[in-house]
């Protein structure tokens, strides 16, 4: 049964390495969102569709934040007074809502890919 586990892991590694070569893309655009007083700035951000981009989220509050967007498939903890970089996309044209999960009633916004 050990051989099975090894086999499964080997296959996973194979698939991953195969895909890594495909992910090598330089020159990504960077967009920035800021969280202050548990609100996003801006709350609406336009990005190009169909290309990967980096999204920097700055948390200016003292409290920890969790950035989440199911449609954009990202989820990330950001400590207080820290920033993080998310790898997003490629997104098809459309609207992609996001929230700061600990304060989602006020901390929300939308990314528009076009």
């Amino acid at each position: 049964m050990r051989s099975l586990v090894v086999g499964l892991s080997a296959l996973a590694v194979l698939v991953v390495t195969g895909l890594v070569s495909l992910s090598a893309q330089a020159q990504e655009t960077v967009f920035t969102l800021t969280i202050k007083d548990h609100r996003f700035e801006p709350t609406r951000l336009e990005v190009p569709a169909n290309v990967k981009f980096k999204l920097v989220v700055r948390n200016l509050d003292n409290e920890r934040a969790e950035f989440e967007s199911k449609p954009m498939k990202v989820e990330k903890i950001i400590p207080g007074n820290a920033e993080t970089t998310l790898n997003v996309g490629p997104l098809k044209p459309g609207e992609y809502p996001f929230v700061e999960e600990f304060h989602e009633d006020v901390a929300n916004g939308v990314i528009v890919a076009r």
Partner: protein
Amino acid sequence: MLAAAIIVFRETLEAALIVTIVLAATRELAGSRRWIGLGLAAGVVGAGVVAMLADVISQSVQGMGQELFNAIVLFAAVIMLGWHNVWMQQHGREMAGHLRAAGAQVQSGERPMVALAVVVGIALLREGSETVLFLFGLASANKGGWADTLGGGALGVGLGVAVGLTLYFGLLRIPQRHLFKVTSLMILLLAAGLAAQAVNFLAQADIVSQLGGSVWDSSWLLDEGSLVGRVLHTLIGYTAQPTPLQLIAYGVTLLVIGGLMWVVRPSAPGHAQLKAG
């Protein structure tokens, strides 16, 4: 209080469903409850540790620590679920048969128990650490403070466990001779769904590519954030907007685990292989 209850329920639900499937799948296996209990306990402790280290994990490995951590534990869970299913396919018949009481069988029966204990531990560790962070976040923001937040949290955990119990007793209504097939299929789909989640974390860490935008968008039909959407997300890996990478991971996992189960299947009733690899 209601906010805490809803949030904790959301997080508890996924863990509760996974634990339920594991409990139903191992009902007939001697010693399974002890192993699952160990997995649960380790998961609770692990959740506390991960929550305490959340900021450190998030900022480590050039800011990709959280993604890598999630990908690794999810892949570990996929491998453990696959191992369990293949092992059970190979030995399930003999264990459910006349040899069940034999000491050697009980002993070998503990092997996949370790695998599923790990799965249960991982489920609790992931969802539990999220829950702890939520409660901290809420308690600091909430005017009611800790008593109110913890009250809501307890209510949320209770609701999550209630859904798990409902599924468990529902599964037990399935006749014994079919239950094994049903739980094997559920574990197979669970593993495929977790694999699709795991590769998404690798894409978030920019280690692999999503290979394109979402293949379809069924959020108009079933929102992933809705209750049914969340339940199906856990049970079968439902994703409203899956990427090519996620679909490939889902399919490959189904094929690999399903294929191995087919390869090791006992050739004829009563002639199960006795060799434990």
